[in-house]
């Protein structure tokens, strides 16, 4: 089953044509890695999937982006509902300046859950799923800004999980983290794919090779190729992919 199928997608920032004719399907309950040199459009692409690009002025998008068969840019889509189903974890950990508890409860509260008991349960479950519960359970009321960078990122994952999304978009989630924290987040991603579909932008090819099921290579706004991760890294079908993964540029 595909969660996303993208057909003939084009995107412009004002005059500049940032994504060119993208066609791509994304498989459910798997990790899809998006790789490519800086400025190749992979971050822009992932931000189109939950319409975070709406926040940037002068963005124009053409083509079809279907989430479970439904065009997400069609006028009857409620953006807030869409973003609830398609969660996002950002490049730099961005916990709100509130307590750990309030950070995780922010999403459920946004979507109307008021009951304390229910919130408690959601917060605990989300923090457990993000593998950070044991580290923070004694200081839920403390500010989230006191956590280390790696903990903050896992908290942000917990925060995203708390609204029970189907898809998790991760925009270079480990680029600001040290190796140990990175390993933890990677481990977590592998565990999460049992229940969620994960799309992850990464700069780190080893990371893509280690944890992803599928890999897509972007270059200068184009999708060069996408296939099974093992296949892409062992037998790339395009010369540019080969040059990139063997470190000849980027």
């Amino acid at each position, binding site marked *: 089953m595909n969660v996303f199928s993208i057909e003939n997608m084009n995107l412009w920032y004002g005059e500049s044509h940032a994504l060119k004719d993208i066609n791509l399907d994304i498989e459910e309950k798997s990790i899809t890695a998006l790789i490519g040199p800086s400025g190749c459009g992979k971050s822009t692409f992932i931000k189109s999937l939950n319409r975070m690009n709406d926040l940037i002025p002068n963005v124009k998008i053409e083509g079809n982006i279907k989430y479970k068969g439904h065009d997400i840019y069609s006028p*009857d889509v*409620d953006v807030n509902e869409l973003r609830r189903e398609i969660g996002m974890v950002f490049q730099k950990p961005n916990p709100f300046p509130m307590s750990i508890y309030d950070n995780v409860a922010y999403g459920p509260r946004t979507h109307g859950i008021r009951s304390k008991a229910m919130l408690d349960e959601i917060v605990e479950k989300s923090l457990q799923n993000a593998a950070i519960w044991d580290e923070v359970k004694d200081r839920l009321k403390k500010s989230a800004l006191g956590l280390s960078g790696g903990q903050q990122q896992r908290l942000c994952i917990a925060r995203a999980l708390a609204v029970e999304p189907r898809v998790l978009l991760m925009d270079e989630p480990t680029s600001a983290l040290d190796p140990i924290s990175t390993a933890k987040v990677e481990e977590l991603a592998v565990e999460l794919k049992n229940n969620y579909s994960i799309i992850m932008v990464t700069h780190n090819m080893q990371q893509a090779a280690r944890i992803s099921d599928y890999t897509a290579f972007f270059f200068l706004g184009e999708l060069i190729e996408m296939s099974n991760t093992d296949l892409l890294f062992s037998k790339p079908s395009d010369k540019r992919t080969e040059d990139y993964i063997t470190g000849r540029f980027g």
Partner: protein
Amino acid sequence: MKNKKNLFENSIHAIFLILGLITVASVILISLYLIFAGLPAISKIGLKEFLFGSEWASTREDPKFGILPFILTSVYGTSGAIVIGVPIGFFTAVYLAKEARPAVKRVTISAVNLLAGIPSVVYGLVGMLVLVPAIRKAFGIPDGAGLLAAILVLTVMILPSIIKVSLTSLEAVPKEYEDGSLALGASPTETYFRISVPAAKSGITASIVLGVGRGIGEAMAVMMVSGNAPNMPALFRSVRFLTTAVASEMSYSSGLQRQALFSIALVLFLFIMMINAILNYFMKKDKVD
């Protein structure tokens, strides 16, 4: 569901748009009120007679409404304050920005902040009871209240504006400029005045223009020390400013006299708008530099 949410977000957007436009509405409202309240008397008296008439006798049987004395008093008074205040403010700002030790800087800046915070009626009171008698004694004149006292009070009142705006601008001068000069063997003091000050000249000019605006617009303190007689300005003569001309007769005025007061306000407003435009020009320039 979605439509309801959209309606909600759109109404909130609309509310904030309205709140955002209130400043614009206020400016328009103020301008229109001053223009409509101010024009009738000017058209009755005649523009030339009003602006250039040198006699103001609003309550006489055969009233005269010439505001040249007020205009000149405001111009002389503000210029006087600028001539004395700008050098003091300028040198203080350079000292604070570049030379002063942190402790000295802290104390001086709090002194400046205090000056800025003192209410104008308090300046007026101190002026009335200290400055005016001092001038009377020093120059042996019957009454010390007049243009000189007003100039001195205004000088003190515009100091904080001049110091603060110049200081901000001087502190924003990139250190590399100064390093370049120091590396060529210029002393720190030479560097400050030959490199930093020219680099901050738009900001310093803006501070002076701001001081002019403050000076022309001040009413209460000036009213308490300037004597308030509608004379042509002279240093030791009792005088009336544009601002105090409006304030001093408003409470008992009626008819053409009252309308003429509104016309004075309009003239003052035009002065201020002109100063604002100049100020804006230099402020923008300072940001670009």
